[in-house]
């Protein structure tokens, strides 16, 4: 199951909260998070890891990043 969270244009801590919201909904699987600042990229990665998710991939996309997190 693959879902996308578009957190571009949202200020701290919304990207983290939106990610955590999605984590709570899906429980396992893969989530793609789109952010547009370095700070959000780091915060989202940290928050996901603290919930037992793995940061599978981080790629530059446009002026921001596409972060893929997953949990089995």
């Amino acid at each position, binding site marked *: 199951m693959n879902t996308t969270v578009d957190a571009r*244009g949202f200020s701290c801590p919304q990207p*983290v909260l939106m990610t955590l919201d999605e984590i709570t909904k899906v429980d396992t699987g893969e989530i793609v998070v789109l952010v547009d600042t370095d700070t959000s990229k780091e*915060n989202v990665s940290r*928050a996901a890891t603290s919930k037992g998710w793995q940061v599978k991939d981080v790629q530059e996309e446009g002026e921001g990043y596409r972060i893929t997190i997953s949990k089995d």
Partner: protein
Amino acid sequence: MLALVGTVPHRDFPLVDSEVSLHDDEVCIQGEQVTVNRGTPALLAATIKAGEFLGQPAPHGYLVGDIGLGDGSRRLYEYLIQHLGESDFQAITFHYMQPDIGCHNRVLFVMEQMSERPILIADAGSMYAAKMSGKAMAYDLFTPDIGELAFLADEEAPHPFYTRGFILHEENRVPELIARAYAHKNAPQNLLVKGEQDYVANQEGIQATINHPMDEAMEAIGGTGDTLTGIVSALISTGMEIGEAATIAARANRLAGHYAEPTAATQVMEIVSHIPKALEDVFCEKNRGEGWQKLSQKESAASALK
């Protein structure tokens, strides 16, 4: 990045300047440990727990041992005077320090010379020192309880011990006390007053009142003010607007306390452990109520600056 400044109640605890972490009920910094209990250790633990939920990096701690003689505090003041100017913290929270007007003013001077002035938060002895020095307005946030608000409101009192009897710390007088504190320039840009009800205020008056859930026992528990200051510090360090951070922190602190099923004998670490869940629930409430608010990059950058 957030820095927290304060003392721990062990005379021989060395002066440390490093990232802080939490392992079970111990705060760890630069190879030293201190058990989480009322005071700056509770502030550190709450900030870390809140920051973990918010995806924030670990805060930076400037700590020293001081059991009230003031020797540790003076060493830390001197250290800050020498080193704080080189830092680039977005926000600094000053906590349990021996109030000393001269030392306080020298540290404040250093911060005011920094090219990017950090957001300044003060509670406990640091807040007393700021008010005693006549420099409350230089700060962005204080987190007094109602007795300490009365002290801020009493333009003659150098310490809460001397608040004059007619300036009563009663709940129904809070708007009056806040107005009086601002009238005499003894309040910072924002106030988060903790009590039976919590108040978020600024020069324009009370902006929010938070009173739910209400657990009477919280007043007796040492450290619940420290956890509130820790949560609001973590929220502010994300760039959130201070008034909003204060409102969320007040609600989250009450919820965390409520989840601990407190009695007057509850110890603060039990409350700290519930902070992440409390924050999650507060943001869920907010989400249901308001929906996500999109800010442009310019607006969010502007709100992070003073």
